[in-house]
């Protein structure tokens, strides 16, 4: 049970729980549970297919986009976590974004990036009680560890080094519709993704 906490300089009242679960086996069960609504309401996360994630900077960039849109009243999805998945994607249609960038339906095992937006201090404007505290983080991590089956490995810290092993450049090329623009150079690819995320829908 390891995780990271992300903060954005410009949005100091958000704390983001972040963890990477590798070799997840019961992804279909989680996916179906979320889709049918049979999973309990407090099981509220943004699950991302780690294959599409190249870097932490890409995740930060999507978080920024998400918080800016929220502050401007321009959110397209109903919840911040769905909005976040949609902000990682290139597609306008939210269902399509969930299919391509959320929990994948194929594969025996998959790698998942799990994010949860928490509110620190008295700025909890969520109304859903997702306040930040060290205990809350531990509870979230425990909740995920028991729900996600990956041979007891649990989550690991979300770092660029870890993401390097889980990113799938072919998937990124396809899902971000890069075709000719695609570059094997990770730094260049990263900037292309960030630009795409920032400019989506504009």
């Amino acid at each position, binding site marked *: 049970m390891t995780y990271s906490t992300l903060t954005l*300089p410009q949005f100091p009242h958000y704390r983001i729980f972040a963890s990477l679960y590798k070799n997840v086996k019961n992804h279909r069960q989680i996916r179906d549970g979320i889709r049918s609504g049979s999973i309990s309401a407090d099981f509220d996360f943004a699950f991302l297919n780690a294959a599409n994630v190249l870097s932490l900077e890409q995740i930060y960039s999507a978080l920024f986009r998400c918080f800016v849109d929220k502050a401007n009243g321009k959110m397209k999805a109903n919840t911040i976590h769905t909005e976040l998945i949609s902000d990682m994607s290139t597609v306008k249609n939210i269902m399509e974004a969930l299919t391509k960038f959320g929990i994948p339906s194929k594969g025996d095992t998959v790698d998942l990036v799990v994010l949860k937006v928490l509110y620190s201090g008295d700025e909890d404007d969520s109304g859903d009680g997702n306040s930040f505290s060290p205990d809350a983080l531990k509870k979230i991590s425990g909740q995920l560890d028991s729900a996600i089956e990956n041979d007891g490995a649990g989550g690991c810290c979300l770092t660029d080094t870890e993401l390097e092993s889980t990113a799938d450049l072919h998937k990124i090329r396809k899902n971000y519709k890069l075709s000719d623009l695609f570059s094997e150079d990770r730094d260049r690819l990263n*900037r292309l993704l960030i630009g795409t995320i920032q400019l989506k829908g*504009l």
Partner: protein
Amino acid sequence: MRDQIVDDLQLRIPTVPLRLISQGAEALIFMTNQHPYLPAGVNPCDVDNPGKYIIKYRPPKPYRHPKLDKRITATRTSSEAKLLHKLYQLGVKAPKLIAIDAPNGLIWMEFLGYQLPDMRYSSLKNWLWLLERESDRDHPVALADNVKDCCNGIGRSIGVLHLHGIVHGDLTTSNIVLTDEATLKPSLIDFGLSSYSGLPEDRAVDLYVLERALKSTHPVYAEKYWEWILDGYHDVHEEDGKRGRKKYSETISRFKEVRMRGRKRTMIG
């Protein structure tokens, strides 16, 4: 008025230290050491000068209807940001896009440039002025090979832009900067007036504006600088093949016309 605008922006992004460095008709340019979404210690990859970022802010215009104003600001902000991303895709040296908040008229981008030996910012204008001060009859350093290479590079950049149907719209010697002290690699900045255009007229005006800017800020050597810029501009069209050559001759013949008559068309009829 200006202080009020700066205060309003500071209230909107209280955690970001702002230093006003330039003001145009439409936007204010700030420098900050705070990345909009990366915490201290995490550097963005593939960015010149990490730890220095430019914020371009288009404040609301009080004389416009608020609803219309919001829309105009959002459109102009996002089209400039899109253009920066496009230039990155094309491999043209220009500030890289970092973040955008279109409804509020904010763009974060990479800071390009460095400090010249005379402590000034490395715009083409400041650099040439410095060299011109150091030049004398025996050592015309302002006409050295590195200046020639730099001018060629500028011409090539403008050429690539034009070949892709983009016009800069405000080519002056302060909107061209040197990005690296060692290589003197030039970059164009400020794409606030840029647009897509397939018209030889617009490309010709782009060139004409720069020629005029050179002549007025660097009267002694302008002719040489301009010749070198045009060489680069020509070469990059030549390398593009038949289409490029055709575009080049269209632009240049139009450029000669524009030179005769000035930037604005006559208003007869």
